[in-house]
């Protein structure tokens, strides 16, 4: 294993944070990963299924090489990596300093459950009297103030919610291990000033707050309040706005002068809400609308107290900070709520619906009507609730809801059977991603999901209690209405409040939509060096792009660490000494825990000890006190040494099964993890004495595993340190620079005579940035880089090999062939505009493609002044077979061209003929701008595309106008065809490296969502247009991501296989090759010369399929020897 000098902080342990943390850890840095919630995996942890697989798949984020560094477990349950320090319930209090040397302060709530102590017995939740909505189930169920943060979480530790806890202490009394500390034991020291001119208000506030344990003081007017503030320190002030004399706003201003750190919550009547909002701009924290309830007030006070009382961790110094704080769901209640969310039963948000379909959700995955009257038969989804809505301050597209709704519709059909009707009401259906369009088409054609392009204007309870009635107006103008059992609102996403606040504290500018702003052409670099962003805190993107941006952020963070001196640390090798111990005959020390925490102390029954001791390979059976404590660990080591045992069997509880604890125990005893087994006898959490039979089974299976565990064969694979990057466009150059900046040599092969790719002709982006400056900068840095060798006019003539040791032959322009050895390969071969076909193209000079128009615009040959009408035809050849995918950039590109025309000729008439306008994310603002400036948008159905008739210098475009329902003819001087993007990827070359192409000729990633830049073979990556159509910043993000993933391999001299890897016992092998056919990783092949089946130990992921198909155990999975499995089964069966 490699280790590097340097530490990074990752904020937020959703999928972006996990990806960034794993990337940095795989490269060798240590990572502190903080998460405010008591569980990792964020929003995606709540969702059971993602399209297109309709499964979760989050575990595919886990390392593929040197897998043993992380525990191969479900990431929705927990995350363990030896170089990642995951701190849950933790927030960033502050960050100071410069890139490379940032001082970070972290804080945690004052009370809580110590996960090191919690044995997961659940007694606390059983006695807790407080019930609050369970966030994990999106509020559909209730949980206790102390409860499991998610079902099946691991460690199986309970968490205490300080804002809900009433500090009754019931949980602390029943906790057998003393793991609970009550929050806010020091509430008396938290002083609250109550300012109101009405005595009754002051007095009830005082009563409520003192009942909660806070100290209060009262003031009847502004001057009184200021006097009190001068006299004593307060932590919180509740301040009435409307008071005679000095009003609340003035008091606020003056109070802030006296005590700048004071938190102030305004109290206002409904009429003065606007004043309260104003007050917030000058420093008030929040406001309460009178009359308010104790339940509204207390959580606010508690929250402030928690900040005041929070425990700060010792400060950290890190080289870089990656912010992955994600986004928040839009709350329909916060807006006009036209669809009656929270008012009519059966109206749900998408996340609520996902929980409803989950096996761990409120109904166990059954789709039931809210009134409980039978199964759900008809469901409607309404798109763009709170998105694409300038009125709701969301002039952006949330980018994920369209596909999520389609997936949910298919899921509903799978759950509810074929006759369940699923209807999606949408504006544009945004299928702007790889494979999205086909998924949508299949949903419609194969599964019968109904798509209606309309925005429902009302939703009411249906008469007779028959569910919900939706009314809408069809494109042609007729009104329609239908009843549904459930209505799912595709509520968009918003910037996360916590993230925005943190950004402000760090001095990071926000973009116009309230997300953290990235610098031009980057998705991850912020205005502050050393602080980068990954995932949706920079704007809404889907899972694949989140994962890409997180890796890109890791790359940028790694650059900072590198620049700050993050060199190679010592290589840690797998222990060899103790492995040889595994070859000795087993001699087991069995040590049973006597639990100190339970009363009376629980221990393993005598007959169990006796039965265990009968095994001739058990050297000793002993009972010792509290093995989960440091003394307990010392006792364990001593007993093992005294018995001369080479394996250790522990009978205790879940606490001792945590990977970190096991590692410590093994290290103390001079053993490896394979030589220690813990059986969970639930001693401390058991309410009755342990069942002898169950305990014996658990111990015997542990014993069986120990006795038969085999030493792993360490077969390191050497890694050639160089990277081969194919393609010298923006993606290729970016990737080359990231890799070379990390010290690895790069061979950059470009088939043309110059670097730059599509940047050689693009002149402007939708954001208004100039790609030519970017190109010049990249070319200069690439050509001047000492570790990048550029091969122009060159091509690969032959390639072979495996990860770590690829060999390629490059033919230069002079015909000379060079042999290159490289550890990884990156495909950045780009793409080009698809050729135009039909639409009068070639018949009239007035019909041109987007790229042609762009070029003519920049070289001045397009007479913009002579144009009266321009028509753009979107999807001219795309989103239908054989090119049935959205090219993502053509809609924004058309809007950008129209903006460019109008700059020179404002009176120009522009018409956009489209199917679905794909301005995802912030590009939506350009769409809004265009509509506002009078650009005409006319949708056309996919089966009736516009017809173009050339007329001398111009052309007439005929299209069916959907509102009028009749054909329309538009005379234009310029018709722009948005033809889309096609890849320029050689199938032969990709396959030579073990990669694959998808059905459209783009690079096939190993997993569309979770491993979007990795190829099907290890060590093969792709970025830019070779992967899929994308914008320049998106292409750069993929390049940075692919480079980071590649560095994870290049960063080490040798790759070590996992302990769990398949092997062939050649003397038994009949070479039937069933294992080769069955291997899903392509890790096996028949070596004809040797006459043997060979396993590639790094490609092998240890799934064991080969061992299952092999009839005589010639194919075996190391770490799971068959005799061991038999013994474990035997023990389990009793």
């Amino acid at each position: 294993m490699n280790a590097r000098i340097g530490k990074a902080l990752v904020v937020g342990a959703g999928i972006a944070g996990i990806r960034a943390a794993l990337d940095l850890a795989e490269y060798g840095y240590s990572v502190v990963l903080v998460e405010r919630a008591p569980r990792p995996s964020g929003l995606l942890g709540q969702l059971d299924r993602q399209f297109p697989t309709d499964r979760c798949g989050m575990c595919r984020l886990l390392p593929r090489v040197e897998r043993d560094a992380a525990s191969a477990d479900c990431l929705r349950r927990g995350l363990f990596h030896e170089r990642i320090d995951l701190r849950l319930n933790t927030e960033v209090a502050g960050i100071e300093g410069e890139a490379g040397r940032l001082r970070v302060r972290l804080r945690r709530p004052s009370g809580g459950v110590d996960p090191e102590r919690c044995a997961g017995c659940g007694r606390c939740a059983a006695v807790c009297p407080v019930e609050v909505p369970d966030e994990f189930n999106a509020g559909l169920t209730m949980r206790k103030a102390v409860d499991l943060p998610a079902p099946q979480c691991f460690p199986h530790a309970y968490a205490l919610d300080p804002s809900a806890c009433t500090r009754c202490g019931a949980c602390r009394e029943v906790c057998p291990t003393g793991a609970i500390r009550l929050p806010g034991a020091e509430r008396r020291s938290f002083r609250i000033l109550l300012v109101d001119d009405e005595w009754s208000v002051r007095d009830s506030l005082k009563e409520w707050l003192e009942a909660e344990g806070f100290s209060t003081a009262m003031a009847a007017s502004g001057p009184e309040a200021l006097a009190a503030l001068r006299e004593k320190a307060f932590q919180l002030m509740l301040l009435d706005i409307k008071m005679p004399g000095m009003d609340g706003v003035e008091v606020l201003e003056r109070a802030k002068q006296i005590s700048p750190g004071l938190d102030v919550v305004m109290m206002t009547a409904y009429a003065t809400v606007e004043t309260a909002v104003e007050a917030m701009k000058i420093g008030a924290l929040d406001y309460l609308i009178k009359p308010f309830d104790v339940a509204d007030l207390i959580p606010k006070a508690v929250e402030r107290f928690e900040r005041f009382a929070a425990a700060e961790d010792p400060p950290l110094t890190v080289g870089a900070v990656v912010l992955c704080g994600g986004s928040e769901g839009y709350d329909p209640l916060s807006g006009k709520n036209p669809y009656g969310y929270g008012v009519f039963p059966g109206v749900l948000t998408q996340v609520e619906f996902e929980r409803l379909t989950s096996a761990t959700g409120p109904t166990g995955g059954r789709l039931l009507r809210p009134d409980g009257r039978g199964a759900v038969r008809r469901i409607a989804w309404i798109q763009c609730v709170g998105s694409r809505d300038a009125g709701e301050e969301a002039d952006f597209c949330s980018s994920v809801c369209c596909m999520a709704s389609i997936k949910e519709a298919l899921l509903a059909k799978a759950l509810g059977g074929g006759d369940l009707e699923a209807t999606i009401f949408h504006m544009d259906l945004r299928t702007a991603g790889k494979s999205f369009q086909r998924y949508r088409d299949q949903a419609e054609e194969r599964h019968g999901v109904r798509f209606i392009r309309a925005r429902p204007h009302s939703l009411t309870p249906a008469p007779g209690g028959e569910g919900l009635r939706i009314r809408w107006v069809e494109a042609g103008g007729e009104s329609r209405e239908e009843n549904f059992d459930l209505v799912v609102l595709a509520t968009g996403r918003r910037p996360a409040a916590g993230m925005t606040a943190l950004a402000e504290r760090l001095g990071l500018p926000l973009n116009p939509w309230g997300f953290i702003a990235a610098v031009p052409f980057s998705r991850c670099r912020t205005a502050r060096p050393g602080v980068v962003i990954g995932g949706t805190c920079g704007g809404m993107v889907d899972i694949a792009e989140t994962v890409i941006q997180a890796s890109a952020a890791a790359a940028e963070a790694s650059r900072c660490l590198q620049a700050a001196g993050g060199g190679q640390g010592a290589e840690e090798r797998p222990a060899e000494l103790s492995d040889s111990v595994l070859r000795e005959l087993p001699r087991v020390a069995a040590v049973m825990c006597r639990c100190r925490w339970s009363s009376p102390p629980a221990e393993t029954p005598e007959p169990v000890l006796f039965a265990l001791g009968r095994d001739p390979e058990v050297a000793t059976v002993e009972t010792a006190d509290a093995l989960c404590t440091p003394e307990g660990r010392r006792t364990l080591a001593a007993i093992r040494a005294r018995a001369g045992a080479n394996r250790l069997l522990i009978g205790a509880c879940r606490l001792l099964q945590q990977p970190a604890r096991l590692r410590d125990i093994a290290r103390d005893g001079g053993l490896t993890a394979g030589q220690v087994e813990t059986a969970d006898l639930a001693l401390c959490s058991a309410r009755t004495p342990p069942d002898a039979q169950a305990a014996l089974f658990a111990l015997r299976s542990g014993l069986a595993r120990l006795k038969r565990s085999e030493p792993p064969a360490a077969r390191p694979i050497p890694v050639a340190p160089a990277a081969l990057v194919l393609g010298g466009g923006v993606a290729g150059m970016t990737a080359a620079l990231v890799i070379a900046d990390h010290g690895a040599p790069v061979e950059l092969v470009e088939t043309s005579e110059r670097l730059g790719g599509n940047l050689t002709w693009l002149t402007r982006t939708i954001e208004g940035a100039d790609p030519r400056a970017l190109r010049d900068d990249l070319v200069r840095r690439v050509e001047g880089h000492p570790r990048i060798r550029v091969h122009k006019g060159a091509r690969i003539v032959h390639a072979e090999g495996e990860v770590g040791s690829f060999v390629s032959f490059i033919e230069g322009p002079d015909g000379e062939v060079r042999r290159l050895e490289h550890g990884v390969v990156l495909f950045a071969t780009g793409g080009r505009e698809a050729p135009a076909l039909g639409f009068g193209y070639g018949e009239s000079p007035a019909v041109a493609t987007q790229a042609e128009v762009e070029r003519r615009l920049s070289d001045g040959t397009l007479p913009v002044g002579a144009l009266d009408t321009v028509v753009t035809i979107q999807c001219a050849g795309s989103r239908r077979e054989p090119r049935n995918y959205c090219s993502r950039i053509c809609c924004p590109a058309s809007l950008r061209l129209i903006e460019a025309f109008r700059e020179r000729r404002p009176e120009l008439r522009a018409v956009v003929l489209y199917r679905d306008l794909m301005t995802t994310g912030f590009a939506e603002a350009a769409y809004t701008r265009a509509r506002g400036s009078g650009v005409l948008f006319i949708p056309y159905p996919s089966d009736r595309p516009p017809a173009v008739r050339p007329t001398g210098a111009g052309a007439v475009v005929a299209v069916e106008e959907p509102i009028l329902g009749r054909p329309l003819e538009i005379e234009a001087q310029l018709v722009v065809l948005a033809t889309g993007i096609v890849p320029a990827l050689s199938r032969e070359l990709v396959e030579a490296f073990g990669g694959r192409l998808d059905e459209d000729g783009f690079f096939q990633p190993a997993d569309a969502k979770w491993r979007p830049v990795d190829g099907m073979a290890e060590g093969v990556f792709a970025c830019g247009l070779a992967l899929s159509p994308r914008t320049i910043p998106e292409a750069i993000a993929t390049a940075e991501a692919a480079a980071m993933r590649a560095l994870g391999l290049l960063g080490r001299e040798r790759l070590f296989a996992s302990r769990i890897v398949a092997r062939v016992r050649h003397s038994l092998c009949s070479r039937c090759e069933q294992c080769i056919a069955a291997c899903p990783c392509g890790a096996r092949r028949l070596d004809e010369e040797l006459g043997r089946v060979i396993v590639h130990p790094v490609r092998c992921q240890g799934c064991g399929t080969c061992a299952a198909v092999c009839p005589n155990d010639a194919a075996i999975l190391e770490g799971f020897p068959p005799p061991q499995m038999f013994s474990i089964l035997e023990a389990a069966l009793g």
Partner: protein
Amino acid sequence: MGTVARLEVKEGGCTAAIRGFLHGLLESRAVGAVMVAQRLPRKVLRMPALVTDPHRLEGIDPFSPCFALNAARMAARLSRRSMGVRWAALMRPCEVRAFVELVKLKQAGTEEIVLISFDCPGALPTREFLRSPGAETAESTERFLREAFSGEATGPELAHACRACEHPVPPSCDVHIGLLGTDGGSWLAVEGRTPAGQELIAAAKLPPAEAPDSREAALRGWIGRRAAYRDALFARTEAAVATIEGAAAYFADCVLCTNCRVACPLCYCRECVFATDVFEHDPFQILLWAERGGVLKLPTDTLFFHLTRLAHMSTACVGCGQCSNACPQGIAVMEVFRTVGRRTQQAFGYEAGRSLEEPPPLSVFREEEFPEAVGLDPRPAGG
């Protein structure tokens, strides 16, 4: 259907006619060798032999009611690597089907071998054959054939495997020799089903013929009777082994001699897992087993052995019955393997020996297979 040629049956019956055909193939060098069942001097059983000299075909007896081993194994061994010449193997349909399975399991090759098969009347259990009078003579075969095709059998009953065999004609071979529907066996309808088979017929210079009309009807009748027997066998066996107790009783007499495994043409492992360290239990473990009920039958793992073999090769089982032939204890092994094999093959829409093109079920990974078994069904259990 390929081209049909006419092979006259004269003196010496069908065997002599085939002898003439093979003689022609060897002499014309259409093939360099022929593997065919032979009577052995001074012995009763017929064994496969590799013949290279056209004059050494006198002892061949391909239609004999004796079937001492499944020749697919020999054919596999001879074809796995190149022999250097094209050669023919004359085998029973169940042998050809086993061979097809072995090819797919990479234990046999198809490059040089030409598969010749025929309408198989079945065979007697080996023990019965050895006891039957005059078994060692060539005439016994002709008599058996006559009786089999006329439906007037007087001798001992065919092996259960053969009586339950619905594949008297192999689904795939290069040359097929039709005995059914040929005017009481007065000629043989030799059919080239593949280009390689047609080449052979051309080399043998046989005159073309019309495919016999009555063959299909005769075949249907034959298969119908066998299928009825088979279904009764399935019902009987399922009832016997449906429970673990039933299965244990069924195999109670097994002494773990593993003869069935040796006789099985599809148990292709070089060394059986039961001969490896995997089943070397700790003595302490065996003691624990004994303690559980106070008494433990030895050897252990007898039922487990058969279950393991079922797990490993029931998808490839062609029902040739050699396991039953090989069992010294008289356990009806074939019945269980066919009964279970039919189920496992049906589960994958597979039929052992049907085609070289169908990959063996376990070599194919389908993500959407058996959703109810692998937990992919999104519907909650019982919902």
